[in-house]
């Protein structure tokens, strides 16, 4: 027997309210997940140390087809070579048009450290290490392996996500060094070998204006970004649903979100560090 139910009042208002509530709830669950992951880091360091080592090796070298092109190190190196070379290509020519091409070495020391390396490294990390983590965890979620982990008594968040956050933070240290070296090298080679500037001129301005404190801040910026990238990517993998296509979509969503969040984070850290004084003195 069917009952005639009168339609509810204020449907549009109800729908909007429900949608807003869902969005709020999603932010809440996400924050809860990040909190849990960060709180479980000591636990992961004590109980799942082998898994952390395994992940460090895997993230550094990459898996599958990515290992063929030389792994994460080579990819990050390649991307920073191309962006560092932009300093030579764009910077040298643009400065030459106003008669300042001698300052290309200065542009490399200034823009590479503050702008180009943090930006490129964050993008490269989200594409390689981050997207890899989403794909792996997402596939485990679809195959119900995460539920199986819980059933056999392994804390899945600690085992899968906290370990990845730790491993990512450790892997990024050598990666950052490679990125900075490659960016400097590409800018120097491009300016001196290809555009034919005297290497003494380049080195003089580069060494005069390379500020060690800037490098340290840039390093901490990249480490902070890595933690956030790993958190976002593991969350999207952990909550993947909808079969094989769902895993792919989760990877795409995670890359989008983490790139935007990393960009905002770089701006805020830069404003916090350089906002007051600029930390730059032309007189040397």
């Amino acid at each position: 027997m069917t009952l005639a139910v009168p339609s509810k009042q204020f449907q549009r208002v109800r729908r909007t309210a429900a949608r807003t509530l869902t969005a709020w709830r999603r932010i809440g669950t996400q924050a809860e997940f990040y909190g849990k992951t960060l709180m479980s880091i000591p636990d992961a360091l004590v109980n799942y140390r082998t898994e952390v080592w395994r992940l460090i090796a895997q993230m550094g070298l990459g898996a599958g087809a990515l290992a063929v092109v030389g792994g994460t190190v080579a990819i990050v190196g390649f991307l920073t070579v191309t962006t560092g070379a932009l300093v030579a290509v764009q910077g040298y020519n643009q400065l030459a048009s106003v008669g300042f091409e001698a300052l290309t070495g200065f542009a490399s020391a200034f823009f590479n450290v503050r702008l180009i390396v943090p930006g490129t490294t964050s993008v490269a990390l989200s594409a390689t290490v981050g997207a890899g983590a989403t794909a792996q965890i997402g596939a485990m979620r679809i195959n119900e392996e995460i539920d199986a982990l819980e059933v056999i008594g392994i804390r899945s968040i600690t085992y899968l996500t906290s370990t990845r956050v730790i491993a990512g933070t450790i892997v990024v240290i050598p990666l950052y060094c490679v990125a900075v070296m490659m960016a400097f090298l590409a800018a120097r080679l491009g300016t001196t070998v290809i555009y034919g500037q005297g290497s003494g001129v380049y080195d003089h301005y580069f060494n005069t204006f390379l500020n060690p404190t800037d490098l340290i801040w840039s390093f901490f910026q990249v480490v902070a970004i890595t933690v956030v990238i790993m958190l976002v990517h593991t969350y999207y993998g952990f909550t993947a649903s909808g079969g094989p296509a769902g895993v792919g979509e989760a990877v795409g969503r995670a890359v989008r979100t983490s790139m935007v969040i990393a960009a905002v984070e770089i701006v805020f850290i830069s404003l916090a560090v350089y906002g007051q004084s600029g930390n730059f003195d032309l007189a040397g």
Partner: protein
Amino acid sequence: MTLARAAAKPWSALGAFFAMSLDTFVAMVKPPFAWREYVLQSWFVARVSVVPALMLTMPYSVLLVFTFNILLTEFGAADFSGTGAAVGTVNQIGPIVTVLVVSGAGATAMCADLGARTIRDEIDALRVMGINPIQALVVPRVLAATTVALALSATVILVGLTGAFFFTVYVQHVSPGAFVAGLTLLTGPGDVIVSLVKATLFGMAAGLIACYKGISVGGGPAGVGNAVNETVVFTFMVLFAINVIVTAVGIQFTVQ
């Protein structure tokens, strides 16, 4: 024997990619053209790309003018901040943000969609029905990515310059007239054309890589996830390389 086969694998993948690209270019000019799929895909790529593109442009252009203005203030030349903003946004931030978004948002979604169809054998089913999947699926997707990348880069440049204007004028207290007057000092129509050419090439390359990775997926759900991951990595690598080369060539024509 197995070693030789393992060594040949990446090369045969590269060859297969170029073969598919060639097929795509041939099918592009051969009727019938899948208009409906083209419009739907363009709308789809635009829908997933616009919001991330705008969200990504704002912080990067603010970061650029902030870093640049520290320098200009130190020289006592803050009036030229518009020049720096225009050079950075039109030549680099515009195309690069377009790259990141078209490959991070558009290409991943395309690859996930095609990959899911491939592992459910839908592509083979199309072939059995006598429909060429390159013509029906790949061509409209590649063209959609190209069109949207071109449109997106214009939007990104406009939004980036607007964001830079508000940040410079209201936060760093540069006079608005000086900012606007400085915009066209070093940046001319040539730079804009090079920037748009870059964006078009990026869109096409990203579309081709995403479609190739999508239709050559194997190995279940994990395979689709990995294919999407590889799409992101390979598109970033190819696009950053294209960016340097096109910048180096284009700058010969734009800088006097």
